[in-house]
């Protein structure tokens, strides 16, 4: 990684990062020698087959796992410090909503924990539920919502912390393709509107290319970066762009990167 890049714009800086899990069958090299720099306002996707360490890398950024070698800075400080500063919002694979809380109360959960004032809490809940097009659903309970709506509540909850960085771990992986396409368009709009930095884990090539400014292709055993692909698709884009030659060329490059990692050899 070039050290000349100014630190003020590097939101995530990863330098020769490795992580080994100790298992009864010996150490597993989940991540090996990862270098990556994510600057403010970027939308970076981590793509790769299961076991390539993409989720692990995201969890290291979020201080949910500890790396065993190398360096990582989030907002210029350690991941632990960044977590304590509530520098990021994390969206999990499942909506992770509390069934006994209404939609609004679910969005309020992190704010209650942070000790945000009551009036501010209500304002933010209204603002971010509106942003994910769920205005009017405040008093519903999670079971009354579809899977896609539940995941949007979870995104509103992550945004309500008002972080600069949004970490998303296959947030639409469990949804059907039609809902997923719809949410991809919404997420793109949301990203443009808010200017957040997004790190997005996925195993879908079209999803990664459609959403990202950069796609990081990873491969397993050990988890490492195979290729980093710049996506220069126009800022205003709809799902139709997936039919264009530019899009298909980018998708092809991602697929080549995945092949180079021999990621599907043993499947």
């Amino acid at each position, binding site marked *: 990684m070039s050290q000349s890049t100014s630190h003020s714009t590097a939101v995530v800086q990863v330098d020769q990062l490795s992580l080994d899990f100790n298992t009864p069958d010996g150490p597993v090299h989940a991540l090996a020698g990862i270098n990556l720099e994510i600057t403010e306002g970027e939308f970076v996707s981590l793509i790769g087959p299961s076991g390539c360490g993409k989720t692990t890398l995201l969890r290291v950024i*979020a*201080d949910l796992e500890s790396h065993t070698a190398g360096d990582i800075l989030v907002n210029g400080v350690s991941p632990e410090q960044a*977590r*304590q500063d*509530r520098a990021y919002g994390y969206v999990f694979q499942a909506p992770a909503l509390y069934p*006994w*809380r209404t939609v609004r109360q679910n969005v309020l959960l992190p704010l209650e*924990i942070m000790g945000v004032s009551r009036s501010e809490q209500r304002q933010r809940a209204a603002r971010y539920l509106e942003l994910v097009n769920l205005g009017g659903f405040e008093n519903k309970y999670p*079971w009354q919502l579809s899977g896609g709506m539940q995941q949007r509540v979870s995104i509103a909850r992550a945004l309500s912390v008002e972080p600069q960085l949004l970490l998303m771990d296959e947030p639409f992986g469990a949804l059907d393709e039609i809902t997923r396409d719809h949410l991809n368009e919404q997420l793109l709009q949301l990203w443009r509107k808010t200017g957040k930095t997004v790190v997005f884990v996925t195993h879908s090539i079209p999803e990664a290319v459609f959403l990202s400014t950069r796609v990081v292709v990873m491969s397993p055993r050990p988890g490492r970066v195979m290729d980093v692909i710049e996506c220069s698709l126009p800022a205003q884009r709809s799902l139709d762009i997936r039919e264009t030659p530019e899009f298909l060329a980018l998708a092809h490059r991602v697929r080549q990167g995945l092949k180079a990692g021999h990621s599907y050899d043993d499947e």
Partner: protein
Amino acid sequence: MTMSEVSHGQGRLLPVLVVIMGLILIWYAGAVYLNSTQLIDRYDKRNVNWNLGQLATDAWRMERPVLPAPHQVGLELKKTVLDKRVSSKRSLVYHAGITLSSSLLGFCLGTLLGIGLAIGIVYVTTLDRSLMPWIIASQTVPILALAPMIIVVLGSIGITGLFPKSVISMYLCFFPVVVGMVKGLRSPEPMLLDQMHTYHANSMQVFFKLRLPSSIPFLFTSLKVAIALSVVGAIVAELPTGGQGGLGARLLTGSYYGQTTMIWAALIVASVVSALLVTAVGFCERIALYRLKGGQVVRA
């Protein structure tokens, strides 16, 4: 639990009635069979010519039967529940009240102790390793052997009356609560705990906002077992105190004087008390689960 099912739908009433009728018939037949030895002895001594009809009629109206007939127990219940003043020492309602108060106190103490121990076990690793074997061992000691000692020891340091009996109820109650609550407090998925970690929540916040609400279904399952045990504990505790009052004392008096009808009446009142308590806990459970699921209708 069948309690909640009984209240659903009238269609279940008929099978329940059929079963009760069947049980009563078996009971009457059993009364004839079990009392026959005594009666036949008596017939032989007096050289009475007897037939089955006579045997049955006599078996169902004995003074001191081995097994009293249902209507005899019914009459005893009418005499001791309905006809006596509630404050009278001969009223089963009075005795049930004594048993109920010590079981309820014991149930509350046991629940608090159980929840406290469960929190300790979940949060303190050393307690997790050291406490659980002792808690399990405590339940392998026969309560019937332990109860008199607890009463005597507490009595010798000047503690008598309601409290020692409640201690025995508590002793039985806390166990299911500990087991259920440990499981309940550990029930949140790793993802939800990770999420709390990303919010930089402290352990009090994780406890009150996530672990405690998640444990409620487990708590109520335990409470239904505990409330029934608390009645058993109170009755067992009343046996060594002998005749001071309570359903246990009635059982003891009944067996001293061979008054089987009295024993059966006390037993029936005890099971009615237990059933009412379990139903009450079940009712609270339905309300709690309804709120916990955000108003989604659930069958507990």
